[in-house]
Every structure is written in C-alpha cells, then in structure tokens.
C-alpha cells in the first residue's frame, strides 16, 4: 500500500522567480515596438507590387539619394573606425587629467537631440561660422555638401565604436602584451598581432552598428545638408518628403530599402564577429 501514487510530481524550482512574467513582458514589448512596425512596413511594401516598387526605388532621384546616403555613411564609418578606436585606446590606456570628463563627453552624441547637433554643426561650418570662415576661403565647403552629411553622421555614431571597443580593451589581460614584450615584440607588432586581433570582433561590431546608425540618421543631417535633390538629399529625407506628399507607397518603398540595408549590415556584423572569434567557439 504505497502512498507514492498520490505524491505530486516533483517540479524543479527556478532560482530566479518571475521567468514567465519577465519573458512575456519582454516579448510583448518587442512585438509592439519592433516587430509590428517592421511587419506593417513590409506589408505596405508588398501592397505596392514588384513592378511599382522597382520603379520607385530605381527612379533617378531615389538612386541618387541611396548613393549619397551610402557614400556619406561609408566616409563617416571609415572616420569613426579610426577615430573611435583611437579614442577608446586613449580612454583605456592612458591616465591624464580630465580623463573622466572626456569619457563622459563621449556620450554626448547619444544624449544630445540630433537636431541640436545638426544646428550647431551648421552654425560652426557655415560660411561665417568659426570653422567655416577658415574652410570656405580655402575652397573646402562643408555645409551643403556630402562632407557635411558625413560629418553629421560621424558625430552621431562615433560612440558606437568607442563604447564597444572600450570594455574589451579594458578587459584584456595585460599579461598578453607583457608576454609579447618578453618574446621581443616591438610596439607595432604587439598592437597588430596581439591587441588588435583581440579587439577586432568588437571593433567590427561597433563599426557596422555605426554604419547602420549613419544610414538612418536624419535630424542632424537635414540642417547641414541643404537637401538638394541629386546632390545632398539623403534617403531618409526623401522618404519623409514622399510621406508629406501623401505618397505612402513611395515612402514605404524607400524605407524598406533602408531596412534591407540595416538587416544586411546586422547579418554582416554577426558573420564578421563569428569569424573573428572562431577560436573561442570550439571549446567546452
């Protein structure tokens, strides 16, 4: 006569309570804020039909806008890749007065409304601004050129590089570099063969996110770009203009292309990271 048949089944208790609730909230939020808008955009695009869609995005003005956006974002990313790496290096490796302040300043582009950034950049670089008065006579106009666009993009996206590289650099075991030193490596060899490979995945990830962010930047650019169709009109602005003209399909098509770029970049970023950290994979 065993009582065991009446024992309730044993259920492992989770150490952290609230798993269902917290996961549910997160998924709901993700759905509302990210998935539904993206799905709506895709549906809107699907409604257009492939022929029309192609006509919209291959119109000369749209192609020019995509070209300008991609070129400027590429310039901004190359700049940020170098400058962001340097900045992260300086913030981690050296001690100097004002270091904390500089570190905090690095977040300004995140915190500052992008319109404010655009306005101040325009004021600085316009023909009678502080920098403009020097650059303009020298034949380097920045405002209303692709350089202005690239600069605005670089300004708003540089923290992505700095803030992804910085923690990895901080966590690097100093013994690695010391080992390289005892093995006779000179500073450049230490950087290129030991330090850089260690931060490469983070750096690539930072650069791709910065690039994606640049593609979508709007507020900071519209002030400095001048927004001349075929010259300094970016894709996000063109979508906005289409929307203002109540051309929802036109806006959606352009937005979808931007979304496509962003997704491709995310994919590339993940593949690069996977490749760069391949030697971590096989363990355990």
């Amino acid at each position: 006569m065993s009582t065991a048949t009446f024992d309730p089944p044993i259920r492992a208790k989770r150490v952290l309570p609230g798993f269902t609730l917290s996961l549910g909230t997160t998924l709901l939020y993700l759905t509302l804020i990210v998935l539904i808008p993206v799905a709506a955009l895709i549906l809107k695009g699907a409604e257009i039909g492939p022929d029309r869609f192609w006509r919209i995005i291959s119109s000369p003005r749209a192609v020019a806008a995509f070209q300008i956006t991609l070129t400027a974002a590429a310039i901004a990313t190359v700049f940020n890749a170098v400058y962001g790496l340097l900045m992260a290096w300086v913030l981690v490796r050296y001690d100097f007065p004002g270091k904390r302040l500089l570190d905090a300043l690095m977040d300004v582009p995140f915190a500052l409304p992008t319109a404010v950034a655009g306005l101040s950049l325009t004021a600085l670089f316009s023909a009678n601004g502080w920098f403009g008065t020097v650059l303009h006579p020298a034949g380097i106009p920045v405002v209303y050129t692709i350089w202005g666009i690239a600069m605005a993009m670089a300004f708003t996206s540089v923290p992505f590089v700095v803030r992804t590289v910085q923690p990895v650099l901080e966590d690097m075991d100093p013994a690695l570099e010391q080992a390289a030193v005892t093995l006779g490596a000179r500073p450049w060899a230490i950087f290129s063969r030991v330090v850089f490979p260690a931060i490469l995945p983070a750096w690539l990830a930072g650069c791709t996110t910065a690039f994606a962010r640049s593609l979508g930047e709007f507020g900071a650019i519209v002030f400095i770009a001048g927004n001349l169709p075929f010259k300094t009109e970016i894709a996000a602005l063109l979508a906005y203009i289409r929307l203002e003209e109540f051309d929802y399909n036109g806006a959606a098509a352009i937005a979808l292309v931007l979304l496509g770029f962003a997704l491709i970049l995310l994919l590339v970023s993940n593949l690069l990271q996977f490749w760069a950290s391949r030697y971590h994979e096989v363990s355990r």
Partner: protein
Amino acid sequence: MSISISGLTKRFGQTDVLRGIDLGVEKGELVALLGPSGSGKTTLLKIIAGLEWPDAGQLLVDGADWLQLAAQDRRIGFVFQHYALFPHMSVRDNLAFGLAVRPRNERPGKAVITAKVDELLHFLQIAHLADRYPTQLSGGQRQRVALGRALAIEPNVLLLDEPFGALDAAIRRDLRRWLRGVHEATGSTTIFVTHDQEEAFELADRVVVMGEGKIEQIGHADAIHDHPATPFVARFMGATVELPVTLLAGRAEGAGLDLAALPRRALGDGPARLFTRPEDIVALPDPKAPWRIVTRTSNGANLRLVLRHPDLGEAEVDTPRRATAADALVVDAPVRLRIAFGTIFPDGRKAATATTAQPASISIQEARQ
C-alpha cells in the same frame, strides 16, 4: 647566464614591495623563489624580465647592466602565472611568435621557424595539439605550450611565475618532473616562483625564501627546514607552535616543557622563543604538569591534540595514534611536552644585549624516540 642582483627596492604607492634584495644566481642553476602571497616574488621576477622597473638597485647579467636594457632586448623566457597564451593563435603560432616578430634582418626564414616549432612540439610532447587554440587545451597542456613559447627564443634566462599554481596535484607532480627534465636538457638559468614548499624543495637547486619584500634565507631544502634563519622562515616552514622559554647558561627551560633533547647553545641568558612543529612534540601524561588536553581528534594514522596552558595559551601536537602512550592521552589529562626538535630565537628586545647584533639562531637535530 649568471644573474647578480643587489640592493633592489621597489614601492607601489605607499607599499614597499621590495626592500633591498641581494641575490646571485649561477649559470645553469635552477632557483626557487618561495614565499607567501604578496611577498613580492612576482615583482622581483618582473624586474628581472624588464616588465617592472626598480626604484633603486642593480641588476647585472653576465656583468651587463640589464637596467639599461628594454625587456625586448633581454631575451627572457617568461612563463606567466595564467599562461597568457595568445587566444587567437593556434599552438603552432603561439610557439612561433617570438621568432616571427624578430626584426627582418634577424628573423629566421619560414622553413627554419617551422622546423624549430616542430622540434619544440616534439620536445614538449605536444605535437598532437599543434593546430588547436588555447581554449581547447587543458591546464597542463597550456602550461607546456607557455613554456614552449618561452623556450622558442632560446632565452638567456627562464623565469616562471607559479608555473603549476593553477593545476591539480597529480598534474603538478608530473609537470614538476618534466620541468626538471627540460631544465636539464636546455641548461638554461632558471628562476621559478612558488608558494608551495614541496614544489620548491623538490625542484630547485637552491631555494630563496622571501617574506614581505625581503630575502629571509637562501639555502637547500634541509638547511631551510632544520635551520630557519628567522622566526618568519620557521613559521613559514611549518613550525607553527611558538612557546616562550627562558635561556639559562645555554639551556632552555619552560613551563611544563621537557627540553632536555635540545642541546646546549651559545646564547645569552634571558627570555627567548621556541619554534617547533606539532609532529616534533611528544605529549607525556604527568599529573603535576600544567598543560591540559582540550581536544583530541584522529585522522587514522595520527592523533591531533590541542593543549592549553593557563598562561601560555594553546599548542598543537601530532602524535602516532597507535603509540603505546596514546591511550592515556584523553581530554582533560594533564601532560608535559617533550620537544624533540626546535629552533630558539632570543626575544628581540633582549637579543641586542644578550647576543651579537646578528639575530642568532641555533637548531638541533635529535633522534626522536
């Protein structure tokens, strides 16, 4: 290469990490730096390697002033405590690193490097691991790769920081024997750091005991074990029982202590301190003695007794459980302590008047009953 260190000091902020280190190491010698954590062993090793710089002192290697030399130019083989293998390089590339980064005009050709790496892989018995990455290796394998990487540059001096610290006991013993073999095969001057006495004594030609930034004693295993130069070394070597005694005409006396086994010595009269190991004490039942047994625990082979004296505090004794007298050693029994072996240091403040300026130390080796 022979190393000669003198008057080396180093401070980090407010802490004196090295307080005047004088040390000579002969060519081809295998020396252990032994000391508790924080005694400055790693710092000393890093100064020799050129990874830290001393505040004062001299470091000569074969007569050349190494403090004028950058770490890169010293050709040191350094094995780090946690190996510091380059995680993104295969074992082969890790081993080749020191050769591959040489300036172009000194760099051996690709074929020479490959041959050298192959030779090392075989010598270290890790040929089957050549294409793995460090994360795919066990602790002992990483240790071998780390040593191989250091040996690849044919170092002048080999420095190892707690080489076996992170490994479990069985692998430690294996690697220890293996390292001894490697040292004998390469003949390189080697200094290794450890906080494990057994490791130091088993492996090294000479052991340097360090405490709080100073060298306390240099010598061979037996000498350090039997004749500790300072109370620090005595304690570090396991003489954890400290008893106050009085020296009178060269003989030590103490409450409830039978010190007849300790020979007479040339120390002035006055208070002194006896350092001894739990296993060098014999507890003898004696109704008139002031020591009482407080606890009695057995580990099978031995009894561990904790004894208490009303004024002197507690002392621990290890005694064979199956000895004839062991049955009488019950809790609360009064006992007298016969000290078979110990070291006596005169009390600091009296020492100056009683003996020479040098803190005297005399030890005795006595046949145990």
